[in-house]
């Protein structure tokens, strides 16, 4: 695998196939944890870790995993790393762990992780799989951070917990409620399509 194509595998996750928008996978955490920048970013990092690790292990074991039982194997590999993330976050970033709550164990059933294991890591070498996992993970983190920032700034008038508008600012609470997540993501998707099509 040459240098150029490794870079290609990496960068495709950042724009061309940026996960929640282009692939429309892994929507649940995208909608649920983007109430603020901090939670979106934390979720993105947790997912990146799981994605890279599971990609490495799936890629390393791709000769040993029989095709017929590959999906259960992938799920067990992914679940193992999710448990590791869960315990680590509980130990070191407890407040964030409480905020993300149920969505940490739910990384197990995140379609992006399973999708990359199935569509990429099972067919490619370790180097390429790491690049792919990193690219997709960082793309996902960027997407969640941007969405989280938009919703936090307009919905609460804060960024990273600090007020950025004057005292007269009336928060647009619609954005931090459930419907705001759907509408905001839908509009972002539309903008991405508009920019991408030119």
């Amino acid at each position, binding site marked *: 695998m040459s240098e150029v194509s490794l870079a290609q595998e990496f960068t495709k996750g950042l724009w061309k196939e940026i996960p929640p928008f282009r692939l*429309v*996978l*892994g*929507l*649940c955490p995208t*909608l*649920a944890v983007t109430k603020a920048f901090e939670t979106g970013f934390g979720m993105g990092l947790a997912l990146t870790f799981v994605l890279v690790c599971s990609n490495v292990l799936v890629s390393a074991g791709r000769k040993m995993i029989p095709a017929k039982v590959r*999906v*259960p194997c992938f*799920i*067990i590999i992914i*679940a*193992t790393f*999710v*448990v590791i993330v*869960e*315990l680590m976050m509980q130990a070191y970033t407890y407040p964030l762990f409480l905020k993300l*709550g*149920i969505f940490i*164990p*739910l990384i*197990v*059933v*995140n*379609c992006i992780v*399973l999708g990359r294991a199935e569509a990429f890591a099972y067919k490619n070498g370790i180097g390429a799989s790491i690049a792919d996992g990193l690219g997709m993970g960082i793309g996902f983190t960027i997407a969640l951070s941007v969405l989280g920032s938009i919703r936090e700034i307009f919905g609460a008038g804060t960024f990273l917990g600090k007020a950025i508008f004057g005292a007269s600012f009336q928060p647009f609470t*619609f954005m931090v*409620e*459930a*419907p*705001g*997540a*759907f*509408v*905001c*993501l*839908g*509009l972002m*998707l*539309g*903008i991405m*399509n*508009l920019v991408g*099509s030119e």
Partner: protein
Amino acid sequence: MGDLILLAISAILVNNILLIQYLGNCPFLGTSKKMDTAVGMAMAVVFVLAMAGIVTWIVFYVVLKPLGLEYIRTLVFIVVIAALVQFVELFLKKSIPTLYAGLGIFLPLITTNCAVFGVCIINIDNEYGFIEMLVSSIAYPLGFGLALVLFAGLRERIIIGRVPTPMQDVAIALVTAGFMSLSFLGFKGMI
């Protein structure tokens, strides 16, 4: 009894799993283009989730808790659900072929449906007793089915409408889901 009814209403409407708790959104967008697939998916989720809820609850309280292994519940639950889905598929194929024909293609997808896994975790996190768990495992997927079928009806209409090109398909579907979610938010005052 009153508490249980309250729990059911809260699970179906107030805390609707799709629109308020944001679980199971991938199949929500994936299978809501046509009414048939939406109904099939909704039925499959009700069927599997009721069973998965019971089994994971029993596994947690009978096996994991006495052994002090609560921290690997994620790993255990996903394996249990995957095995259960496989088992249900085989069982239906053999004994109720008509139902299998209806649910068929949706069953494997359910393993990675976060709604199923999510409700199993919710049951444990909220420390529900057996009866409460039973009600929540049935009410949540009913809410899922309700939202999915209503949404499929809306989406069939959207296809006829003239939507600007960049907003077509998923983008407009998400915005529509947002407004549906807004209307479900109105149920908040009920409880």
